[in-house]
């Protein structure tokens, strides 16, 4: 068990491609940290630098008190679970689990003990002498996990370990990984592009984009207070609704011309207004009301999604249970003031919203401008 400290870590590939642009991160002992972001954001590169599979161009990586920049992966006391599991196809499950221990010259009895224990934890004891190709996807995943825990390393590294599983199994394994990490208490770094996986697994969420960290925080904190429009739209499904606001006199103007007065916000500057689909109140609120034109209604069962237009931009509204709304309907919608987010045109968060939009119909607004 150990802390992990990244200090100004950079990765520059030959040809001057900068995949990781100076990231600093303190990971507490026993923490489950999830690196999430779109493909190409540098999350896997960062993980592989912690593992020692990629050289570190600049900065330092510390595991515990030891700087590991120049240390071989095998010496870093880490274990890694790969996306394609990387099980040795010609070895039995037992041999797969024990290979790393044998290479370290561990005694046969202890190897056996450890393999049996890991197999019991993961419930793979009954196929220890099978080859990986005789296993199902979920079983292979467990063996890959087993290979990691059998070594009792200081750190677990996960590189999208669930993305080769079908949706149902993925959900199940997610719960198991979380429970396993809780019970072992091993510091873990987990890379995924799936925001749901990230939200449910993480103690600390690190949202990355374009080689930099966009936001670090607890999952709910990141969800409630996204630091940028990128985080706002990446975390949460469906993503946060974002409406561009143009400066107009003492207020703002939506794309369709609707005027919103600004109370206590930087005036004369364009901005971006955001609100989550589930924060929408049908019938409008005192703070903010708009006409919503339904284009598609998607009943999912427990909830329904209404896709349509409001204020001249595409909007998604989430409704509990069933909805009576039909394509072509016009509905009055609103959002409580505390649930509004304001971002600058650079995408950075400015504040929670306090825009009080007076209840005015869009038609009249259009006429005014």
């Amino acid at each position: 068990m150990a802390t992990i400290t990244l200090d100004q870590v950079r990765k520059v590939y030959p040809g001057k491609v900068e995949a990781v642009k100076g990231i600093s991160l303190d990971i507490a002992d026993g923490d489950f940290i999830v690196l999430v972001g779109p493909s190409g954001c540098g999350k896997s590169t960062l993980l592989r630098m912690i593992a020692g599979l990629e050289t570190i161009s600049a900065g330092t990586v510390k595991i515990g008190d030891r700087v590991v920049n120049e240390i071989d992966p095998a010496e870093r006391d880490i274990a890694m679970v790969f996306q394609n599991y990387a099980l040795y196809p010609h070895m039995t499950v037992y041999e797969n689990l024990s290979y790393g221990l044998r290479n370290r010259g561990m005694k046969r009895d202890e190897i056996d003990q450890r393999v049996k224990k890991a197999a019991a934890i993961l419930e793979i004891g009954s196929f220890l002498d099978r080859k990986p190709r005789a296993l199902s996807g979920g079983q292979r995943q467990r063996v890959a996990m087993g290979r990691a825990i059998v070594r009792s390393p200081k750190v677990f590294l996960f590189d999208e370990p669930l993305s080769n599983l079908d949706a149902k199994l993925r959900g199940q394994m997610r719960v198991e990984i979380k429970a396993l990490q809780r019970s072992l208490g091993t510091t873990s770094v987990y890379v995924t592009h799936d925001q749901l996986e990230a939200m449910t697994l993480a103690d600390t969420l690190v949202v990355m984009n374009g080689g930099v960290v966009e936001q670090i925080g607890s999952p709910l904190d990141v969800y409630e207070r996204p630091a940028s429009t990128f985080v706002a739209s990446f975390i949460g499904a469906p993503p946060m609704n974002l409406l561009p606001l143009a400066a107009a006199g003492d207020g703002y103007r939506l794309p369709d011309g609707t005027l919103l007065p600004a109370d206590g916000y930087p005036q004369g500057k364009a901005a971006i207004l955001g609100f989550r689909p589930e924060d929408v109140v049908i019938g409008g609120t005192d703070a903010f009301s708009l006409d919503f034109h339904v284009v598609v209604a998607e009943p999912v069962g427990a909830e329904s999604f209404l896709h349509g237009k409001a204020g001249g931009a595409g909007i998604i509204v989430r409704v509990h249970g069933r909805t009576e709304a039909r394509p072509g309907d016009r509905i009055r919608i609103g959002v409580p003031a505390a649930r509004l987010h304001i971002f600058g045109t650079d995408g950075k968060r400015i504040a929670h919203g306090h825009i009080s939009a007076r209840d005015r119909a869009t038609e009249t607004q259009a006429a005014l401008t």
Partner: protein
Amino acid sequence: MVEHRPFLNFLSHAVLVLGVLIVAFPVWIAIVASTHPAETFQTGRIPLWFGDAALHNYGVMLGDGLSNMGAPPLAGMLFNSLVMALVIAGGKIAISITSAFAIVYFRFPFRMLAFWCIFITLMLPVEVRILPTFKVVADLGMLNSYAGLTIPLIASATATFLFRQVFMTIPDELAEAARIDGAGPMKFLRDILIPLSRTNIAALFVILFIYGWNQYLWPLLITTDEGYYTIVAGIKRMAEAVDANPIWNYVMAASVLAMLPPVVVVVAMQKLFVKGLVETEK
């Protein structure tokens, strides 16, 4: 097939049977001839059916050879051929695996240069550089030795390419997992790469065994001591003998013995053989 055409099916069978007969004909004749006494070939025609001198002919060739005509007993020549075939096949595979491993899994200066040096051997068949190569081997004192018979032939661009191809298809994560599991390069080669390439190795071995066994010009050039004659090259010396004395029965017995090992290998390991052949040419 798309539709049922009895005549076409019959024709196809007829073509194939005819093809098999043509292909087998010379070998059939050789086997038959090797069972007749020498007198059969003094006059008349080559027989089409077996004679009764098989035991005698093969016994003479394996045990005594045609010593007076420059052909030692075949048993010794068969042994030399076996050594040559095994060493060439094993040697080519061994040095090609390590070369391909170096080229695929390491980055070092002049890596591509090394690759091209190996590649260029494809363009230099022994036949076009006979004299200077002979001279090198003579200068190194390797004439009339197993080393001389084998070492100059064990560089192999084809085998190196094949293993390079095989290694390229092995997922990167396997090497990474092995590194995290504490396996160094040689351990990775031994524990992971070689076991994963074993069918390729076996298939290649079949092809290279035949290649080594059937070597002709090279052993002919560098062996003057009959203790190092190989059977395929030795055939030439026997063929020269029949100009004076038509002892075709003995020559054909020798030919049959020379063909037998590689043919048995091909037939017994047909699947591996076809795989090896098709893959090395890819």
